[in-house]
């Protein structure tokens, strides 16, 4: 399933003194099965963009085509869109409400009008896919740790069997261990379930090692769009807009400037260490 954005604009409080242009002429093509990271700091428009993709917000102008169909056509069914494009919001506390984790995951499929057997089947499958411990299935969601809550929240959307899964800052408020677990989980879901994943974050370092395409947003515009290796060389421009490239990128560039012949495109610790060794020999 592909999504095409054609000159999409979005304006908050249009026509008032408080008008804010959140998105400016966005053109994007999101292909089937991609693993995309959308990076930008607070207020860059990245959250607005995700809400446009599943129809929670409607673009002020421009078109969005999902599978070749214009989602703003009058006969287009927005429910279909939300079934196809799942969106997990930043804080799981904003969506957990049922008495048990299992029931909570059932909420989405229930709204899709499935029969009870299918609903439960999907809930089981989703909870298993996010690696949620079985002994907690019938516990209330409110006592869980931050990381486990996140898993239930992701399962709640996954159970709707979307083709595209968007995760808005899925690691906010987690500690490093919790963050690595969730990001690892997302990467595994991408591989095993074959769905398109869009990961929204403000941390390059976190996202870099997982995604195959980075979209950098700044002030409502797409600043860079490409593989991490293509984006990071612009580390100076990224820094100017308040985004830092991974430390390794800086390190390699500084070594290169001092005359050591290293590959500046290394993005992970391992690559960097190997490359420095190689250059020193």
């Amino acid at each position, binding site marked *: 399933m592909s999504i095409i954005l054609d000159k999409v604009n979005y304006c908050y409080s249009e026509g008032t003194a408080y008008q804010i242009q959140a998105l400016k002429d966005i053109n994007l093509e999101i292909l089937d099965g991609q693993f995309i990271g959308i990076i930008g*700091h*607070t*207020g860059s428009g990245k959250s607005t963009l995700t809400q446009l993709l599943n129809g929670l917000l409607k673009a002020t102008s421009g078109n969005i085509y999902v599978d070749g169909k214009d989602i703003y056509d009058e006969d287009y069914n927005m429910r279909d869109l939300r079934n196809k494009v799942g969106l997990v919001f930043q804080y799981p506390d904003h969506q957990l409400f049922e008495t048990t984790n299992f029931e909570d995951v059932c909420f989405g499929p229930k709204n899709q009008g499935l029969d009870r057997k299918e609903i439960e089947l999907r809930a089981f499958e989703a909870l298993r896919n996010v690696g949620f411990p079985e002994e907690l299935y019938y516990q209330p969601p409110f006592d869980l*740790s*931050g990381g486990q809550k996140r898993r239930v929240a992701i399962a709640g959307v996954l159970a709707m069997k979307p083709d595209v899964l968007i995760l808005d800052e899925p690691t*906010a*408020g*987690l*500690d*490093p*261990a*919790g*963050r690595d677990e969730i990001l690892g989980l997302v990467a595994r879901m991408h591989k095993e379930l074959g769905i398109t994943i869009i990961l929204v974050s*403000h*941390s390059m*370092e976190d996202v870099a090692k997982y995604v195959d395409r980075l979209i950098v947003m700044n002030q409502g515009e797409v600043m860079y769009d490409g593989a991490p290796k293509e984006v990071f060389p612009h580390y100076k421009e990224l820094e100017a807009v*308040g*985004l*830092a490239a*991974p*430390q*390794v990128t*800086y*390190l390699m560039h*500084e*070594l290169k400037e*001092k005359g*050591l012949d290293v590959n500046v495109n290394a993005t992970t*610790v*391992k690559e*960097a*260490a190997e490359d*420095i*060794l190689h250059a*020193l020999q």
Partner: protein
Amino acid sequence: MSKDIEMGIIKADKLVHEFIRRDEEGNVESITTALDQVDLDVKEGQFIAILGHNGSGKSTLAKHINALLSPTEGSLWVDGMDVQEEENVIPVRRTAGMVFQNPDNQIIASVVEEDVGFGPENIGVPTDEIWERVAHSLAAVGMTKYRKHSPNKLSGGQKQRVAIAGVVAMEPKCIVFDEPTAMLDPNGRKEVISTAHELNRKKGVTILLITHYMEEVVDADYIYVMEKGQIVMQGTPREIFSRVEELKEHRLDVPQVTLVADELRKTGLDIPAGILTREELVDAIMRLR
């Protein structure tokens, strides 16, 4: 212990805190030991960092220093005052201020300057002096420009700086930062950490920074690492950062530069242990050529 013995501003001696959960009939259902025999000694004017992942007990420790929780066993003195004495509660809170994680949930007033004035109002500071303190504190955190604004329109980092100003206005000797950056984006995190350092440098305020981000503690004077309610590592940043394997075991996020240095060291290269910054690593590598 008497006050004239050389004692740090914060001293914990075998501090224990247990959370006891009871069922409806009042029977003990479970006991969680959040702090387990913690010893701590902080000298006035130091910048101390406490590292640990969620649930390691570091926030429970912070709440003791502000007398928001009381020890189950052991003792804790803040500026020589035993926190368990009822009459010390307010003096302890005036000595050790606290900045919390969620910026929204600690701002009481709807205008920045009124919030900063809230603490001084509570401790009975005369009106004229409140205004002076508010002006000072807002200047100290660089938020003077926003004094008439509503906190709701500020960014996370700015809100957190307002919260810091609110504590500074009470003129505490020590400020405990309880994961002040956990809900902020990278810009906000930088703002808050540099504000904390500035208060330490310029006003000599003792700082206790509690966090799970290792890169925020590089410039601390001394680091404690907590796990399961215990202090499992302590030392200067250089000592701590040189024990990479141990840090990984404690599920801490070792900065990439330190990791690269460690990888290189393991291959037998002559690189010093405990590399903290990029500049150090670049220098160390270039020296090998």
